């Protein structure tokens, strides 16, 4: 029993210490972020890597999610004779939830894990130490641009994901199943509110970008300088980012939509 309590206490302390370390790191990174904005030469390649190179997986996933939504949505809606509402169902689910959340999960798996591995290996091979010894701050030079790239890219990726999803739903719902194209678009237009739905969705994606960006650079920067250290950090990036995105999504959804009923 005592052993159990001791283990529990130890684990709690370790989690708290890690959270404290992450918070302090977050403040340091934020303080270096304006500097990264002033050096587009450092930022643009990172946005290209995190954003542009994620486009394929984002567009393809978006298309498929949209197509599946159309099939499933149609099947349920036509039972109530409201198959024409398919457009609004698909658009609302994508813009409010699936776009930001799935884009963030994919982002953590593709770009986040790569950034963690890259920074972790730079630490293991003493590249960060060498930079620091050359009087160049590795947080400003390496970490801040990668963090900022995640914050910039994710809202755009989420928007692209949602658009691809709507297109996928159109292909299946209108072209394949045969719902009236006018009804599909006009229902969508009538039910999606720009501020409540589109802007809130983009805001969610921005928050997820901050979370996923911070987690991937933090795990890489604090990875143990060994093979297991880097592989463990990469795994943690994907797991912690995904859980954080889902938790944050729940909190944000409650805050954004509780006043509506």
């Amino acid at each position, binding site marked *: 029993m005592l052993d159990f309590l001791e283990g529990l206490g130890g684990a709690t302390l370790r989690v708290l210490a890690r959270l404290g370390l992450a918070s302090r790191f977050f403040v340091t990174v934020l303080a270096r972020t304006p500097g990264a904005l002033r050096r587009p030469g450092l930022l643009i390649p990172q946005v290209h890597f995190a954003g542009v190179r994620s486009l394929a997986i984002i567009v393809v996933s978006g298309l498929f999610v949209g197509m599946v939504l159309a099939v499933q949505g149609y099947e349920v809606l036509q039972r109530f004779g409201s198959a024409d509402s398919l457009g609004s169902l698909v658009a609302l689910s994508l813009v409010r939830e699936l776009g930001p959340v799935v884009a963030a999960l994919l982002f953590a798996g593709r770009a986040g894990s790569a950034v963690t591995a890259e920074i972790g290996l*730079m630490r293991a*091979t*003493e*590249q960060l*130490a*060498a*930079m*620091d*010894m*050359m*009087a*160049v*701050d590795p947080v400003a*030079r390496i970490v801040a641009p990668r963090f900022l790239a995640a914050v910039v890219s994710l809202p755009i990726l989420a928007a692209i994901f949602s658009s691809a999803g709507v297109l996928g739903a159109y292909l299946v719902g209108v072209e394949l199943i045969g719902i009236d194209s006018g009804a599909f678009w006009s229902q969508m237009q009538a039910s999606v509110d720009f501020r409540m739905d589109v802007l809130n969705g983009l805001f969610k994606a921005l928050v997820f970008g901050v979370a996923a960006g911070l987690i991937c650079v933090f795990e890489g920067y604090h990875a143990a300088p060994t093979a297991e250290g880097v592989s463990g950090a990469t795994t943690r990036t994907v797991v912690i980012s995904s859980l954080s995105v889902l938790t944050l999504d729940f909190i944000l959804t409650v805050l954004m939509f509780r006043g509506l009923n």
Partner: protein
Amino acid sequence: MSDPLDAPLIELKDVRFGYGERAVLDGLSLSVPRGQILAVMGGSGNGKTSLLGLLGGRYAAWSGSVQVEGQEVGRLSGARLYALRRRVGMLFQFGALFTDLSVFDNVAFPYREQTSLPESVIRDLVLMKLEAVGLRGAAGSTPSQLSGGMARRVALARAIALDPMLMMYDEPFTGLDPISAGIIGRLIQRLNAAFGMTSLIVTHDVNETLRIADRIVLISEGRIVRDMTPQELRESDDLFIRQFADGLPDGPVPFHYPATPYARQLLGEGDAHA
């Protein structure tokens, strides 16, 4: 008043430092005059690399004083620490080249980050530094295309980019074939003379060290136990020095890590592995 240039460049007094509870350096004192090539030798785990960390301001000593050019390094932070580091070059054990940059860009890195020189001037400076280490022809390569010895020469060119007053070498000969090690050794000597630097080499390569160092100190159990010239090391019949210089497995420095007596452990006494 004495000329400040006569004052030692490095002055360590009674330094204590370690990791966790364990002190690696314990009461270490050392003074290095300008222009000298000093080799710090000693077995692995004797705090040689920690010494470089202290001098570069990467760690702070538990107690004692670590001074470079009269400045207490442990008390410097932020901009003042970086101002000192701009004048200190360090060659890491495996070079630590930036793997995402070409050889040229690696050497250009300090200029681009620390100066506002136009790119045409940087180009000439980089080619000069690469020429100094004999690798001007490899400017377009990436670090992964280089051999270990070449990578270390590129890293050396990068480390001397800003003409440091002090160069620190962390195991510069480790893992190199004799020819590459000889090249690095001669470069250390030539650069030290040509740029008026002071060099601190942490190493356990006895042959190379005897060839290039002005002075050799041996570290054991956290402090300096011998301080001599290469000539004195060659001629010494001190058992400790001979064990180290000739690579004898057992002697004053025991081969065995401290343990329960062998027979007793085999009979089931002692630690958890019994």
